[in-house]
């Protein structure tokens, strides 16, 4: 596809998602209380959006991933929350 074709096919969809992310951050800022680690990890991952790297999707996924390599002793639960809290936490081990 040409760049023009990509824009013609995907611009409106991407525009909608971009505004949704902006509205989510606004909503988060307006809300009361302290956010957990996911807010900070989300903002860190957002930095990939302005990267010149052509693997931005991969960069966002890596940014939100557990980078450790050893299996853990016990599962903290069955689910995943979408971001890694870092070492020394219940989920981050």
């Amino acid at each position: 596809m040409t760049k023009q074709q990509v824009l013609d096919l995907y611009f409106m969809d991407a525009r909608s998602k971009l505004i949704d992310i902006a509205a989510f951050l606004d909503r988060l800022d307006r809300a009361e209380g302290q956010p957990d680690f996911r807010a900070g990890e989300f903002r860190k991952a957002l930095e990939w959006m302005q990267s010149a790297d052509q693997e931005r999707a991969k960069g966002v996924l890596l940014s939100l991933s557990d980078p450790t390599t050893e299996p853990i002793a016990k599962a903290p639960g069955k689910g995943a929350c979408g971001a890694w809290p870092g070492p020394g936490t219940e989920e981050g081990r």
Partner: protein
Amino acid sequence: MRYIEPHGHMVSRTTDDYEAMVYAGCAAVCEPAFWAGFDRGSVEGFRDYFCQLTDYEPRRAARFGLPHYSWLCINPKESEDMVLAEEVLSIIPDFLGCPNVLGIGEIGLNKNTRNELRILERHIDVAAQHGQLVLVHTPHLEDKLKGTRLILDAIRADGRLVADRVIIDHCEEHTLGLVLDRGHWAGITLYPESKTTPARAIDMYEQYSRQNLWLNSACDWGRSDPLSIPKTVLEMRRRGHRESAIEGLVYGNPVRFLSQNPRFQLRLE
């Protein structure tokens, strides 16, 4: 266009879904064993489930002329209870002779624990001993990268499985290259929220591999869409892919992998 749904948890879906899939061109559905959304209480619960996968569900699909195949295992979400897991592993060989069973799956990891890894190694051993194809689930979200690496290393450490008889499923942009570099097949799962969208799936197809790759809906009891493969066919047409290339991805590729088990009857022609 004809396509194969190589990963659908049909026990969680309605008969209407079967009908809609057939209307959309589905030529066969393959159902890996998975977590029911709650932990089963005993090995007898798994025996009943395996009977459902090998007897009842194929008959339900056959009402619509749809061939149904299955894969057997205890899923990683229930592998923390190693006593139960060993009991379930002991009954799997009883079902490997069933005419619709294609292999061991979907094994893998969930939270990347030592017990999950031990039970993954036990499944690899059963597959190697019985010469089975293997379908591997990779963990969700933040756990996927680490889990994929641990799984690939466990398979390599065992050394008995032939790489292209193993498919590693639920790959995304940060894991697909790792899987293909080891010579395995890779699966991409189309989900409304987690995993990938049709657009991202076709991005990966265009960038990484047009050969050892399949798409699936992994439809189950959660938010998922049993028609996500035909919807991705539309995505490919919008981008101008040829019909032969599209059918190669959604029909030809799964046929090539699954035909490594002679029980899988569909052919390329």
